[in-house]
């Protein structure tokens, strides 16, 4: 959207703009880095599988069954991915609404991550749609299904992507040296922030609400009427855990961009985030216990599914919560990163349990994702990382904004 406006506001002749773009399109890092060597072949195979999916149908590359119609592409890419991208709205809330300036240095990278995650997860969603072209029906209003949770989630999702793009757009303007556009876009930020957070709260909970009608089809240990609330609470610490882990990786990979950011105290930020995560997980755990007692779920514990449930709650909620608490007390950043990793695995486990593993747990033929589904999922993540890297190396995401951006107003 904003790409269309920006070139017009640039005060250079158009040839200069194209020369600049051509220069920027060239790779800036090492071509034969270990990450590239691993990811490139997978992306090629993934693209071939995507081609086959459109040529021969979804069934030709996936193991989806009539009982379990949503597999890895929805259960991981969309349901889990949206929770992982929750960091964007949490940090925007902390920095722009609560005015916690401490977290400002990691705001742009988090917003960019969130935006790219949403962009690529919607691409994954399109792959999973049997008749993807008909998605225009939802957008142009050819029969709005306003009573559908999925309809509301879809619209909140779409509008939130626009809000994220607006929140990030000042960085694009700074990169293109578009001062006038920068001023306009910065002015729009507050609106994007307020509506972005609202839209996030609703679509994060909406993804939980998607499964409300599957009562009786999801194992009672995972199904409850509070799914929307549980989803939105867990998206807070899932998002933060992603910010912690992603930040730690950026610290190593993008050292060049981080140069000269003297006031950038990453450890302080990590400790603060671990405190918020621990509190979020405590609230989540309390809700889980409450629901468990309220629904009288004791009877299910002494079964395979029951032990699997305990494994998820003890191993991936209680353990990382305690790790976050301890590491916050002793300022142990190494432990924070481990806790973040366990938290992310736990969220993945929880979302997969609800959407795939305990979904029709009683069905005769179990759904196990095919290798093609895994490769396509990896392909989407890798392309996203490539795009992220391309942007971080060019735009002021981790590096400082140009001087004029501060004096522009």
């Amino acid at each position, binding site marked *: 959207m904003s790409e269309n406006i920006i070139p017009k506001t640039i005060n250079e002749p158009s040839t200069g703009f194209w020369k600049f773009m051509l220069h920027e399109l060239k790779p800036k890092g090492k071509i034969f880095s270990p990450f590239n060597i691993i990811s490139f072949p997978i992306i090629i195979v993934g693209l071939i599988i995507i081609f086959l999916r*459109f040529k*021969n*149908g*979804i*069934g*030709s590359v996936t193991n*989806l069954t*009539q*009982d379990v*119609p*949503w597999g890895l592409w929805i259960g991981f890419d969309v349901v889990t991915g949206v929770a992982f991208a929750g960091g964007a709205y949490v940090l925007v809330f902390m*920095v*722009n*609404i609560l*005015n916690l300036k401490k977290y400002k240095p990691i*705001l*742009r990278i988090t917003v960019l991550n969130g935006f790219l995650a949403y962009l690529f997860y919607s691409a994954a969603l399109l792959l*999973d*749609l*049997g*008749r*993807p*072209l*008909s*998605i225009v*029906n*939802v957008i142009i209003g*050819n*029969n*709005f*299904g306003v*009573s*559908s*949770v*999925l*309809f509301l989630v*879809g619209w909140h999702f779409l509008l939130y992507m626009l809000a994220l793009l607006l929140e990030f757009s000042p960085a694009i303007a700074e990169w293109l040296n578009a001062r006038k556009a920068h001023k306009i876009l*910065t002015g729009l*930020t*507050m609106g994007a*922030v*307020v*509506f972005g*957070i*609202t839209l996030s*709260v*609703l679509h994060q*909970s*909406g993804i939980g*609400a998607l*499964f*409300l*009608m*599957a*009562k*009786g*089809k999801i194992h009672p240990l995972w199904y409850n*009427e509070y799914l929307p609330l549980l989803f939105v609470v867990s998206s807070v610490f899932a998002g933060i855990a992603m910010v912690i882990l992603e930040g730690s990786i950026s610290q190593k990979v993008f050292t060049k961009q981080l140069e000269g950011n003297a006031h950038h105290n990453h450890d302080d930020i990590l400790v603060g985030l671990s405190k918020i995560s621990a509190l979020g997980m405590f609230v989540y755990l309390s809700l889980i216990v409450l629901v468990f007692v309220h629904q009288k779920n004791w009877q299910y514990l002494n079964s395979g599914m029951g032990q699997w449930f305990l494994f998820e709650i003890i191993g991936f909620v209680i353990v990382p919560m305690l790790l976050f608490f301890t590491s916050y007390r002793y300022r142990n950043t190494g432990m924070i990163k481990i806790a973040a990793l366990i938290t992310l695995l736990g969220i993945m486990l929880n979302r997969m349990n609800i959407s795939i593993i305990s979904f*029709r747990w009683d069905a005769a033929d179990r759904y196990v994702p095919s290798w093609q589904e895994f490769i396509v999922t990896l392909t989407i993540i890798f392309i996203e990382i490539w795009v992220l890297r391309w942007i971080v190396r060019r735009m002021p995401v981790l590096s400082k904004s140009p001087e004029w951006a501060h004096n522009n*107003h």
Partner: protein
Amino acid sequence: MEINRRFFFKAIGATAAAIAVGQETSASEPDLKKDNKKEELHGMLYDMVLCKGCHGCEYDCAEAHQLAEPVDTTKSEHRLTDETRCTVVNKHETSKGEVAVKTQCMHCSDPACGAACLTQAMYKTEHGAVIWREDKCMGCRYCMISCPFDVPKFEYQSTNPRIIKCDMCYNLIQEGEIPACSYYCPSKALTYGKRSDLIRIARKRIHDSPEKYEDYIYGENEAGGTSWMYISPVPFNELGMNTTILTSSYPALTKGFISSIAPVDILLPAVLLGIYEATKSKNKPLDEEL
């Protein structure tokens, strides 16, 4: 056209009612959930005491929907509906001997698939049939996630996949005919008519021969009421039928969430702006953000 069709239905309905309950033509209809609708809900009564399990309806259904001819009908193991067949008949060993059970879409009065569908491709017609409209569907399969009876099936092997499920032969009904399975059933196990009349017929059969029938109409209250209803010689859990289905409508499970969306969309921005005003430092200009 519209008036003619409606007139025709009234004629059919009146006839069915007359046959079923004799002179009693204008009784009150408490079971009708959607009494504000112009047309009365129609449905099917499936009598498992009468059904002989000949599988004939499977062939008629396949022909009416241009699907492949049924296979394995003689197999003893339980068959499921899938993307090649909208209905199957399975035989179950029960306390009263072998009982045949037909499976197809239940055509809920308030269908979960219809509430789930974000393009209204799954659509509950005024007539009672839940139909799937090809030009609307985007193939998200949320209907399959939501349906408590696991009815909608998806053509995974197709590049332009369809949802396959019983549509109560809606195209035949529009032409004034009745569903193929009911029309051809040699044992008259399938009675098509107004839902309220069918409940009366079912009650009468149960009342007249209590030794033959289990005193229960499956579908009268299941999922908030379905257009397709079953009466059986044995308890329904002996027939492999889902007896844990809620007796309230499934879309009601999401009503709370959906009705909370608009208030949150309106109130939360105001709250956020309030917090922002309360926490912003006085000496810094507003546009310092980001």
